[in-house]
């Protein structure tokens, strides 16, 4: 039954701690992975269970001892959870330095959370030339050394297998995204659960559950909803998804860092699996934290919205996320030029009242249905 499968996604998405405890009870070690990209394949290949740490909707208290108020609340809430022992039992956290706030998370983590090791992952921004690929590889080797200190063992053959596991998961997530574009009966909240649960399950389990879901999905739904494309870093707030659903909006594609941006690029097949993983990073693009002067992401949003017959684009801005704030101006202009209506809503991990978002999206819906 599809409702059972959807419930399983929801349970995993809503209970990361229970998932973590389940794996730990099985004798597995947990390595947390912070936004936006981390070499999960390596962590997986070395016998750990990678679990996403994208923070939580909560009031910030202890994190304020470290961060000023004007830093992204996703990052602040990761530290808050760390200080409050929500991740207790995890062996390490891998934090990439892909934005300025993430750089400071790692530095603060060392002093705020002393029982979970901080493993930095330094990615290059000039990632495509050979010297960029070599630097990515050096960053991966640094992660491997740190994981070895925690008892992990690196084996290229195991990494080859993990690369395959992750490619298979990427593929199924792309199929899910495509399928959901034709299924307006799957709500925004359910869609969010499918993507979010991927962070709290092993990729093998999540791939299997997604396959089950796709098999059960059946014929395209007939509901007449308002097709939109959503863009942003994170869109998992239940209130936000509730509003999308209340407004009769159907997410036909996403450009969300915590969702589809994770699954666009596969590890290529190469003899050296670590080199292959570095080449994967070189091939990644269309993201606010990956340098590309041409900003192809902007056109990607417009093209995808047209391909999927979206009526509009909703940019969900995580407050204080400057990489996204810079890109927003270009996205707005490109949408205007393409005659594609766009709405901007601002969200925050500490937000309790979503009435402003509701009003914005109500107006947007009215505008699109006029």
């Amino acid at each position, binding site marked *: 039954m599809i409702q059972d499968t959807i419930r399983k996604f929801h349970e995993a998405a809503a209970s990361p701690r229970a998932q973590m405890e389940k794996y730990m009870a099985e004798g597995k070690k947990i390595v947390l992975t912070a936004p936006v990209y981390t070499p999960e394949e390596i962590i997986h290949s070395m016998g750990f269970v990678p679990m996403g740490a994208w923070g939580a909707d909560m009031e910030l208290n202890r994190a304020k001892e470290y961060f000023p108020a004007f830093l992204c609340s996703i990052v602040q809430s990761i530290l808050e959870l760390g200080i409050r022992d929500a991740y207790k039992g995890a062996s390490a956290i891998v934090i990439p330095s892909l934005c*300025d706030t993430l750089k400071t998370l790692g530095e603060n983590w060392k002093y705020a959370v002393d029982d979970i090791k901080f493993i930095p992952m330094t990615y290059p921004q*000039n990632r495509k*030339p050979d010297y960029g690929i070599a*630097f990515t590889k050096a960053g991966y080797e640094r992660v491997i050394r740190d994981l070895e200190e925690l008892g992990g063992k690196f084996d290229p053959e195991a990494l080859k297998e993990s690369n395959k596991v992750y490619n298979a998961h990427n593929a199924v997530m792309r199929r899910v995204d495509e399928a959901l574009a034709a299924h307006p009966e799957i709500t925004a909240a359910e869609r969010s659960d499918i993507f979010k649960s991927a962070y709290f399950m092993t990729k093998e389990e999540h791939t299997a559950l997604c396959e089950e879901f796709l098999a059960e999905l059946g014929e395209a739904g007939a509901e007449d909803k308002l097709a939109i494309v959503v863009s942003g870093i994170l869109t998992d707030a239940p209130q936000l998804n509730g509003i999308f659903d209340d407004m009769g909006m159907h997410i036909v594609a996403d450009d969300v860092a915590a969702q589809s941006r994770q699954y666009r690029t596969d590890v290529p097949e190469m003899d050296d699996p670590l080199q292959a993983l570095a080449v994967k990073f070189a091939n990644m693009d269309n993201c606010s934290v990956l340098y590309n002067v041409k900003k192809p992401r902007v056109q990607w949003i417009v093209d995808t919205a047209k391909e999927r017959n979206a009526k509009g684009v909703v940019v969900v801005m995580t407050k204080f996320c400057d990489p996204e704030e810079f890109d927003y*101006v270009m996205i707005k202009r490109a949408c205007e030029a393409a005659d594609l209506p766009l709405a901007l809503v601002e969200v925050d991990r500490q937000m309790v009242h979503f009435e402003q978002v509701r009003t914005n999206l109500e107006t947007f819906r009215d505008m699109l249905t006029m």
Partner: protein
Amino acid sequence: MAEEVKKPEEVKKPRKPLDPNSAKYKLGKIASDAFATAIEAKKQGRPVAWVSSNFPVEIPETLGLATAYPENQAAGIAARGAGERMCEVAEAEGYSNDICAYARISLAYAKLKECPEQDVAMPDVLLCCNNICNCMIKWYENLSQELGIPMIMLDIPFNPDYEVSDAEVAYVSGQFWDAVHQLEDLFGLKWDDDKFEQVTGFSCRASRAWLEATAQAKYTPSPFNGFDLLNHMAVMVTARGKEEAGEAMETLLKEYKENHEKGESTFRVEEKHRIMFEGIACWPYLRATSRGLKDRGINMVTTIYADAFGFDYNSFDEMIRAYCSVPNAINLEKSRDKRIKLCKDNNVEGLLVHTNRSCKLWSGFMAEMSRQIGKECNIPVTSFDGDQADPRNFSEAQYDTRVQGLCEIMEANKEAKEA
């Protein structure tokens, strides 16, 4: 109706012209020439680059490319009172007011192409280096889009380790030569090893003199007012690869040494307390922030800027390592240790931290780092909220209260020590 009272016309004392042999004159001239030279180059049809402050200047200097520094321009615009006006232009385009105010001012300038408070030559290329922040990448990406000109990106990632790795040196070196070749191809320029050697010589000479000049604060009282450094720093940003910068910095060093010998200082009141100032200056409130200290006899004797632009090296690899070790590219421990050294070398009694709304990276681990500095140096630490260029994010009353609090603790500490 109240009778109109005619105020007597204020008679300003004519300023004594500066001695052209003084460091102040020389440094002021270099700083203002930096803008004028690029404007002149543009008129003559020569290419101009907009350059981020910690980009290796050795590249444009060796290639003979005219340069302008948007951060320097934005600071000038903010100091002359136009920060808010320019920020609002960018905000009207859709840029969030959470974005760095330097970036907003610069993007506003890219649209308006004029600002009487500080004009610059419009660029033909953008030279971006993110060793101070990743915000720089996004800012320059957008400039490239807005202006339709190429951008050369020299990526120097934040280093989570204490030492610079060989892998990082290899990565940055590869980019260095790629940047050179791209510029050669774009503008028909030619790299010259002899010129490069000359430029590195100039840069090291200026850096050595700057580091030694700022180190004169080791004397009590300090032979200079630390706010001088904020002005002189402009030369280290824009012209450290030029011969005249080294000469001017050596003059500055000579003057500071002479001040010490004669018992003089550019801090013109009694130096009761010595502090370290942390963060970029609040350019829109330079006078208010300076006066708040001076009125209490507090001299800001050192800042990390004393270190930030000291690029002294003996080889190509050392040069690359120096650019990988600028303040915002290094981890908490290395950042902390550099500051602790400055505090100890300069007999600092308190730390005043500018929590700069524009700079997420600088402010993001400042709380923990300043706690550690305070503990290690046994000095009080206080912070105030401000912004490097957007005047809307600063409250003079809060600043004054915080400085007063810091002053009282330093006084109490002094009394306890004397007792």
